[in-house]
Structure formats: structure tokens, C-alpha cells
């Protein structure tokens, strides 16, 4: 268990955020941080714009597609923020907390308690009342369809269809949901310190256990063959290339340290994963040989957000204490 010897920390520019960082994104190339105090910070240090996306509120969740950032708040609002700082109200659930969000193209989905809602590109909103609180949701790659994680399983919902959603059952409390880029596998993180997966073609179950803590960060590799996860003292990376997914295979462990992994983000073009830890350290790890490069020395609390730009040339990270930084990889 050694700390990485090579370092890129001299290529990091600090980006003081001043409030816990909930999410990180690049909006048309500009770094953007969603903060717990309701503010979205856009731009590099010295030229930052503060956008009050949720005045008087807290941002609970943030998602981005690289063009816009969408935030959910404890004020009940879903807001879309453009690279120019423009705000667009997507939904208002009248004070109910929005803590699950998804977006794809011009469509958005959010959850407030048991009710999940989807808004299509034309602005039409449909809602579905799940059996219990919807903790995580994501769009499936094909069609206008959503996966909603809740207690005892996941509902697959076509917002525009009259039919009741189909249910993938597995006992326990499901938190976050993610679908592989090819749409073959659905994976949830669970209250019970495990991941659960389904092969969507036949609803075959996959159990991924052994985590000492909850997994709250999940990231697919660019080729869709690997899923990097938080929740252990290493970034646990599961193989999803074969038709059985990770069944019967051991995961890779990247960046083994004496600290809990809190964030994982695969590079958009290479099999390199950025890993953030509970002690504030961040590193890059190459999947092929496990080689590590330090991106941030430990300190100032846990890494709470990690994001690559579209080219994979810059890495934006934020901490729960309000520190943040932008790493530009040397050319």
C-alpha cells in the first residue's frame, strides 16, 4: 500500500468553491461546480460567475450532459443551467426534496418522494407513483424509458406508454441506478453495501458484494466494458464485456489505499479511472497495469465530485469542505 510516486499536482489550479461541492461538470468546456448552498459556480479561478440556481435552498443532486447542468434542490425545484449562466426552470414540486435526477438530450427526469416525473423535449410532463421512495433514476439508452430504483427492486417505465412499468425485483433498498452504455446491463447500489445487477435481456440477477461501505459513485468506461465503483478502500472495477457481465469473475482493484473511495470517474477516451478518497486524495489509475499518478494530495475532507472534460484533457474535482481544483493534463 504505497502512495503514487509520480504526481500531476503541479498542474492543478485551485478553484475555491466556499461551500460543499455536490456535483462537477464542464459546460461547453467551462468548469462548473454545483454547491450545497444553492449556487452554481461557472468558470476558472479569477473569472468565476456565481449563479444562484436555488436561492435559499440547497442543491441535493446535479447531473450534466456537457452542455448544461441540471440541479435538484431541497426547495423542490429542478433547474437547468447553461454555460452562459442562464437559468431555466424545469419543475417545481413545491418544497418537496428533489434528490434524484437524470437527463438525456432535451429530456429530464426527477423524483420527489415516491413520485417520479419525466419531461420530454416538448415539455410534456408524465408522472408515476412508485411503490416506495425513488432513490435513483436513469434513462435507458434506447427509447424514452427510465429505470427507477426503489425498495425491493427497479421499475422500468415508459413515460409515454399507458402500460404499468415492469418490475425487476430484488429484496432490499436500492439507491443509485445506472445502465451500461450498450443497454445490456442495469446496476443499482444498495443500502446493504452491495451492488445488484440485471441482464436486461432475461432479467438474470447479478450480485456484487464485499463492499465495506455504500457505493454512491458509479462510472462506466468509454467502451462500456468496465464499471468503476466507490465504497471500498480501492476503486472496485467490474468487468461487463462478456455476455454474463461480471458473473464468475473477480473485479479489478485500482488505487488500494487506507482510505475509502468516495468518487470514481472513468476517462472519456482511455481505460484510466480518476479516483477520489475520503481523505481528500485523488489519483489517476491505469486499468491495464494499475499504474498510479497523484492528482491531489490528501487534506480538507472527502472528494465529493469528479468530472472529466469531453476530451479527457482536464479533470475537475470538488470536496465536501468547499475546496476544488482543476487539473490540466500536460500535453
Amino acid at each position, binding site marked *: 500500500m504505497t502512495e503514487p510516486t509520480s504526481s500531476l499536482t503541479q498542474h492543478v489550479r485551485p478553484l475555491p468553491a466556499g461551500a460543499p461541492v455536490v456535483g462537477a461538470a464542464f459546460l461547453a468546456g467551462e468548469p462548473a461546480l454545483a454547491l*450545497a448552498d444553492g449556487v452554481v459556480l461557472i468558470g476558472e479561478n479569477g473569472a468565476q460567475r456565481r449563479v444562484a440556481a436555488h436561492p435559499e435552498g440547497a442543491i441535493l443532486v446535479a447531473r450534466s450532459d456537457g452542455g448544461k447542468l441540471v440541479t435538484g434542490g431541497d426547495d423542490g425545484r429542478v433547474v437547468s443551467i447553461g454555460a452562459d449562466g442562464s437559468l431555466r426552470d424545469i419543475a417545481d414540486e413545491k418544497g418537496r426534496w428533489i434528490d434524484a435526477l437524470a437527463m438525456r438530450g432535451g429530456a429530464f427526469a426527477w423524483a420527489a418522494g415516491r413520485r417520479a416525473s419525466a419531461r420530454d423535449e416538448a415539455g410534456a410532463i408524465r408522472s408515476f407513483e412508485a411503490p416506495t*421512495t425513488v432513490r435513483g433514476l436513469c434513462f435507458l439508452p434506447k427509447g424514452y424509458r427510465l429505470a427507477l430504483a426503489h425498495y425491493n427492486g427497479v421499475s422500468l417505465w415508459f413515460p409515454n406508454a399507458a402500460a404499468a412499468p415492469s418490475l425487476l425485483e430484488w429484496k432490499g*433498498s436500492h439507491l443509485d441506478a445506472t445502465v451500461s452504455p450498450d443497454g445490456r446491463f442495469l446496476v443499482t447500489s444498495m443500502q446493504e453495501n452491495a451492488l445488484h445487477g440485471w441482464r436486461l435481456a432475461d432479467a438474470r440477477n447479478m450480485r456484487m458484494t464485499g463492499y465495506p461501505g455504500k457505493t454512491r459513485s458509479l462510472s462506466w468506461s468509454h467502451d462500456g466494458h468496465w464499471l468503476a465503483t466507490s465504497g471500498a478502500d480501492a476503486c472496485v472495477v467490474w468487468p461487463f464485456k462478456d455476455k454474463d457481465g461480471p458473473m464468475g469473475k473477480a473485479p479489478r482493484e485500482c488505487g488500494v489505499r487506507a482510505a475509502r473511495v468516495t468518487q470514481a470517474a472513468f476517462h472519456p477516451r482511455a481505460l484510466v479511472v480518476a479516483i477520489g478518497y475520503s481523505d481528500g486524495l485523488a489519483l489517476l489509475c491505469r486499468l491495464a497495469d494499475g499504474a498510479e499518478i497523484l492528482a491531489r494530495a490528501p487534506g480538507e475532507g472527502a472528494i465529493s465530485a469528479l468530472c472529466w472534460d469531453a476530451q479527457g484533457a482536464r479533470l475537475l474535482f470538488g470536496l465536501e469542505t468547499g475546496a476544488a481544483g482543476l487539473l490540466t493534463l500536460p500535453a
Partner: protein
Amino acid sequence: MTDAAREKIPVTVLTGYLGAGKTTLLNRILSEPHGRRYAVIVNEFGEIGIDGDLVVGADEEVFEMNNGCICCTVRGDLIRIIEGLMKRKGKFDAIIVETTGLADPAPVAQTFFVDEDVRNVARLDAVVTIADAKWLAQRLRDAPEAKNQIAFADVIVLNKTDLVSAGELREVEARIRAINPYARLHRAQRCDVAIAEVLERRAFDLDRILDIEPEFLVVDDHDHDHGDPHHAHGLKHYHDEDMQSIGARLEGDVDPDKFMPWINRLTQERGPNILRCKGIVAFKDDPKRFVFQGVHMMLDGEPQRDWRPEEKRESKVVFIGRDLDEDEIREGFLACAA
């Protein structure tokens, strides 16, 4: 108390049967000038709300943990809400969770044993049960939820004492004591109990399990003196048909190799019936007191401060639960002698 424990947000669970006065007490807590800021998790959203306090509506979703432990239920919504509240860290000093009148306090308490993320940021302070002096005796007969709430409590506020006679009051207090002789009991009218007696009690703090003597005769009579300073001696002794508290005491040392397997097995086998347990144990050749507490099958224990020279090395355990076998527990504990 460690520094980490001091930084964690205290959480008070406010329970009580329908109409006992939970909302009255909550409104008092929020409106009195005490300089503390509370985040309040309520079930009926919008019913209360005072400027400067955070009021969050909850769905009271009780989940069974998928970990092979049959009675391990948690409040899923509470895990989610505490995670969200931490985004506003620094904006409040403490959290109050109001449960519905029919709620079992166990899932709330177990949430703090089971969920690591919750444990890292918040600590359970106390379970406070509001009871209606006029109707409690009847509720104890016809509502198992009411009995659970009394059995589970660290603090009991016996409200509406002005609506009953002195005799009826003694009667209902004796009923409470038959179930739970260890809770602090306060008489109140319109919930006029001192806030300090209800909040920030540290009842679940292992450092505070200093003394677990029952309060059979210690009735807090502040400002409700009924003119009979000796009334407490008139307490009748009741035995509740199905809910008991069992205390056992062992002079001299305990063998940890006997005690640990015994307490683990007992809470595994009898966990569904054991609502609360706690104890202070003197392990042989160990200068430190071992303290533990538990909720159903969940146990939490650690070596604490040294035994003081003037202190008698004496071990005490207490169990509150339903249909407990007193002989089994007492003999099992005594057999752990070193």
C-alpha cells in the same frame, strides 16, 4: 465524550400515542427562545413551521435490511433526509424526529446502529415518549404500539396530569414503572416540561451509561406538587402481563470469554423480544469498565473509563422487552462470573 461525538448532530426521537401532545411539545421547543436551531422531521408536512427552523416532511418508510437479521428494520427515509440535511450543515444544531402515533421507535433507533453514513454525522440522543395521563392506562391495554413507546423511552413526559386525580396519577405512573422503571419520568400539563429535560440527554451515549438504577421511587415533581410529599411511597407495584424489565447484578468480576458469547447469543435468539438493553460490566483483569447497549439484535459496546478506586467492581445488566424469561436471563448472566 470524544471530539467526534461532540461534533455529531444530536437526534431526538419524539414519540407518543395519538393525541398525547407531541405537536404541542414540538411547537414549544421551536418557539421558545433557547438560541438553538432545529431541523425537524415530521410526518404531516406543513402542520407546523417556525421561521428559522428547517421542517422536513417524511414518509416514515420502514425497510427490512436484507442482511439475514429478521428484526433489523430501518427508516429508509431518515437515511435519505439526514444525508440531505448535511448539505445544510452549520445551519442547525440538532435534529428532532417526530414519529406518527402508531410508530414503533425501534426502526428509528436501529437506523443509527446500522447505517454508517448516518452514524458518521449524527448520533441518537434520546427517545422521548409523550403519554396522556388520562388515557395511557387504557392504551396500554388495547394498543401494543403505546406499550412499545413506553418500554422504549429514555424520557417519558406524562402529560395532561391536570385532567386526572392524584390517585389516578399514581396508578398510571405505577403502570409505566411496571414496564420501564429506567426512563426519566416528568409530569406535565400542556407539555410544560423544561426543554432541557427533553433535549440533548445523551441517553445513547456509552459514556453516559453511568448508572442504570431503576427510578422506582424517584418521581420528578417539579412545580406539580400535589401537597403530599410522601406520595411516591404510595406507589403500587404492578406487573405488566407481557412487557417486563429485568435487571441483574453480579458482584465481582465477569469472564469476557463467557459474557461476550452469552450476550451475543441472547440478543440473536431473543432479539425480536428485547426492545432495549444496556449494562456496565467489570471484566477480570481489566481496569476499564465495559459498557454496552442495544436495540433488538443490534449491540454496541466498548471499554470505557477506568473503574475508580472507591468504586465497587460490580456488573449490572438491564433488559426491557416482551415475554422475557427472567430466570434464563438472570442465570445466564450469573454464569458469566469469572
